């Protein structure tokens, strides 16, 4: 029984000059039949499924639709076509440092973020101390959030988001959070969650990391699914060859 199943998932973005022009100009252009938008498929016909305990690596050059696919899996976006089916809880560790409120204190932000991630108040009360310790922000607890450095913000974001023991864990290159010392700590935390039996999806530009950790691999290129399978080394070799310009798609 698959834990995660994507069937023919496609996601379409729409680009055009609608955001700048405003309603008045929109109406005028509509009347003049001069209103244009272009469609842009970030994902096209992605189909794969994962079993419990799988570790999937997603590779592909910039703009190949990796992040968009993760958003579809975590429910932030709904696929334009196709279906995403999953079992259990999903913890997406995307780039999370944005979306905090600069005027609130570190503690207030931690609670707000916890609430957004679907934790309960009791859970936050219990875990707050370990969050702040893990992020090493004890002395900044009651400072306004805007006074923190961007590294500190990422640390807090990571500490809150990595608390859970999800059934499906999504990692978007967050393994590189904070300074050297914190990076080690966060990697250890990651491995702990993965060892707990979570099905994990990892987006990384580091092929050696993928070769080492993953048992399944998905290669995306310009939104299309080039390869998916458990022959990780083979696909990594192909991808390497593609990066070196030896093969073209």
């Amino acid at each position, binding site marked *: 029984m698959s834990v995660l199943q994507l069937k023919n998932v496609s*996601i*379409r*973005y*729409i*680009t055009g000059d*609608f*955001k700048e022009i*405003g*309603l*008045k100009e*929109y109406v005028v252009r509509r009347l003049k039949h001069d209103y244009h938008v272009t469609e*842009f498929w970030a994902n096209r016909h992605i189909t794969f499924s994962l079993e419990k305990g799988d570790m999937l690596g997603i590779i592909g050059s910039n703009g190949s639709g990796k992040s968009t696919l993760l*958003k579809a899996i*975590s*429910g*932030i*976006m*709904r696929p*334009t076509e196709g279906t995403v089916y999953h079992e259990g809880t999903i913890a*997406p560790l*995307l*780039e*999370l440092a*944005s*979306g905090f*409120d600069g*005027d*609130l204190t570190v503690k*207030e932000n931690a*609670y*707000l973020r916890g*609430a*957004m*991630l*679907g*934790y*309960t*108040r009791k859970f*936050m009360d219990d875990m707050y101390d370990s969050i702040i310790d893990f992020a090493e922000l004890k002395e900044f607890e009651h400072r306004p959030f805007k006074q923190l450095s961007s590294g500190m913000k990422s640390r807090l974001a990571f500490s809150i988001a990595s608390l859970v023991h999800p059934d499906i864990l999504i990692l978007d290159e967050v393994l590189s959070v904070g300074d050297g010392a914190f990076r080690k700590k966060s990697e250890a935390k990651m491995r702990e969650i993965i060892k707990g039996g979570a099905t994990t999806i990892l987006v990384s530009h580091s092929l050696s990391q993928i070769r080492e950790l993953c048992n399944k691999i998905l290669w995306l290129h310009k939104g299309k699914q080039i390869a998916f399978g458990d022959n990780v080394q083979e696909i990594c070799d192909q991808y390497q060859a593609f990066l070196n310009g030896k093969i073209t798609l």
Partner: protein
Amino acid sequence: MLQKLKQNQFLFEELVKRDFKKKYKRTILGMAWSMLSPLLMLLVMKLVFTQFFGRNMDHYTTYLFCGTLIFSYFSEATSQGMASLMNNGAIFSKINVPKYLFLLSKNVQTLINFGLTLIIFFIFCMLDGISFTWKFILLLFPIACLVLFNLGVGMILSAWFVFFRDIQYLWGIFTQLLMYMSAIFYTIEQYSYTVQCAFLLNPVYLFIRYFRKIVIESTIPTIWFHLLMLADVGIVLLIGCWMYKKYNHRFLYYL
């Protein structure tokens, strides 16, 4: 389902707290200031318009206050609600949260503000020699309607605002026009019967009129008046929910 509700309740509380803290900047004066601005508005109107409209009318201050009270709540709640999706876009593109809660918390915040102004309104009523009757309880009806009405308008505007940034300015102009058409500082008796009926098409005027009927005239509006209000609220809420459902995900796909 029950657990989901509980989770959302936590988020909702935290959001209300956030909006409250941001609005009043953790100061008592901040709270007082937000009540002061409708009072200043009232004062200016009173000074300017008593000469023209207040001469042969009893309780003109209360008449004015009914208007400004309702209208400032309406305009604040809708303009704040409009930005609720847009301002939190950074969160929506990273975390899967129920977006309506952000609009709801903004509405709660403006409702608190309205409540504070309402207390001052009752104090003014006392000073103006209004006798309080049991009928004042009926004021809960227009207030409840107004809360839902503002919510519906907020849903419509917040969905639009994501796509069209100039909605902000257009809505500002619209509310100003609406204010002049809501009989806040004048009476509508001078107009012909047809024009007077036309005023009933303005939902905000209905709320104001309900307040005046109860507070100043101490009469209960007709059942048709109630139904008309309910119809307005129902229509706006329906359109709002439909638009929210249709567009609340969609803005993520527009670059």
